């Protein structure tokens, strides 16, 4: 079994989830409360990774972060390195690929917060930003946790995008799903089975936890009147 690949996958999932938390919360807030007419376009863009083949997404990301692209040149000027076939490049791709898995649960959580509570906070003199952190986020904890778990799990299992952007460099970009592919190519079915079983177990646990949360089995704060 490829412990190095598993460790890399976990590290990638961890950082992806953390970055998605930072990007996803404001993005979901905007998507929930903005009254712009062209909001639906942004919603569609955020949801694109759900339907796009990973190879297509990976291909465009590869072009976008390549050494001749503006992003690639900027990155090279700042760090002296290159994004494709590096852990950082993988991270950029993972964040984009898992964006809907974070933003959609966050947004549905925010939308479920009683509008009257938000208005009550405004009337008490609390700014919109402070209301977000003092009322909306605390009341959306289950949805935020759901979004984080889904992002983590989705990144753990990604294959196509990683292959396109990161290639297969041991310890740098060879994630656990790619190592399984390698094992099968090398006809090492035993190693592939071990790794697959581990991934299956982790994925099942993560999803069971998510659905448990959805059913409010672990509701952090039961609603009024219960």
């Amino acid at each position: 079994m490829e412990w190095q690949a598993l460790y890399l996958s976990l590290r990638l999932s961890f950082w992806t989830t953390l970055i998605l938390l930072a990007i996803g919360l404001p993005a979901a807030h905007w998507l929930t409360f903005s009254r712009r007419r062209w909001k639906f376009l942004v919603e569609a863009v955020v949801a694109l990774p759900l339907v796009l083949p990973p190879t297509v997404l990976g291909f465009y990301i590869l072009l976008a972060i390549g050494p001749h692209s503006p992003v690639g040149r900027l990155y090279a000027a700042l760090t002296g390195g290159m994004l494709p076939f590096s852990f950082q490049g993988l991270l950029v791709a993972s964040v984009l690929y898992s964006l809907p898995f974070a933003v959609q649960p966050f947004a549905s959580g925010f939308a479920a917060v009683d509008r009257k509570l938000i208005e009550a906070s405004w009337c008490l003199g609390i700014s919109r930003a402070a209301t977000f952190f003092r009322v909306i986020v605390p009341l959306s904890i289950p949805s935020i946790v759901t979004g984080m778990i889904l992002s983590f799990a989705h990144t753990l299992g990604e294959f196509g995008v990683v292959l396109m952007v990161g290639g297969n460099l041991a310890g740098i970009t060879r994630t656990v799903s790619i190592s399984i592919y390698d094992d099968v190519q090398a006809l090492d079915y035993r190693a592939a089975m071990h790794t697959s079983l581990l991934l299956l177990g982790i994925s099942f646990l993560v999803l069971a936890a998510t659905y448990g949360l959805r059913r409010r089995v672990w509701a952090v704060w039961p609603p009024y009147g219960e």
Partner: protein
Amino acid sequence: MANELSVDVRKRHAGGPEITAALRLPLGMHSVMVLFGPSGAGKTTVLRLIAGLDTPDSGSIRCGDEVWYDGARATSRINMAPQHRRVGYLSQDYALFPHLTVRGNVAYGAHGWAVDGLLARFGLSELADRHPRQLSGGQLQRVALARALAAHPRLLLLDEPLSALDAPTRLRMRGDLRQLLAGVQMPAIVVTHDRTEALALGDSIAIMIDGKLRQAGAVESVFDCPVDADVAAAVGVETICPARVVWRSAGLVTVEIAHARLVAVDIGDPSTDVFACIRAESVTIERNPSGNPTSARNHLPARIVSVIPEGPLARVTLDCGFRLNAIVTRQSEEEMRLREGELVTAVVKATSIRIVPRG
């Protein structure tokens, strides 16, 4: 600029009626204005416009020397955010933060107020560490009021403050709320569709019907002297009959309803098509005309249509050529043995009939 809240706004929700309201409320002293009217009249919308939670289509809202909203110039419209208006807004179900304790709720927007003092004053010290879901309706209301006051508002806006309570609590809280409002010495606008609440809480009243503010003034004067038939119906006048003026003299007016004639006090309106408004409690029922002269001007032969007991009272519907509602005590009803179909005399003083113009 006068130290008052002055509101003059228009607002149309998609698919709804246009709501217009113009009202004034003195600031810096305790006075409760009741915004009264049937459900769907636009009362809550007016409150939300004042709080800044909705934006008017046009008009202006001023509070003392501050301009909260001015839609006069389309290019440089002024619309102050609710955060800066300093109004204590209580929505119908109080909207307490479920994830915070009572203390957390009261301290949420606190400005230079000792939260503990406020908790003690509202009898909430014992409950400080509980969550809203563990409180009764009356307690929730006190927390909501304390939370609003902690933010140091200059004006309180209460939307149906008693409607979320069960009937016995509502009765008790009506008196408590009046005392609490008087205790904090703050101007307040209270929305209600309940007449007894309006009478119990208000110093002044503004009647809203179908999105329009129809009459405003001291509570007694509006209840006693409605300006038109809609307002009369809204404030609960039981008998409102179309009538025709047949005679005017010496401050009195004689009107004809069907074949019956009534004498009423002339309010000086020249119309001949009018409504006669008569409250049920000002109709007296007599069994046998005594023949003795009485001060009441109107004695109408009537047939009893129905007698419906209502607790200690009985509501009697009479047919005098038109339907006239009377209310008597159960005791008189039993002593007089009022039964359906019997003939009696309805007695109404001229001063108890309010004539309002029709159309």
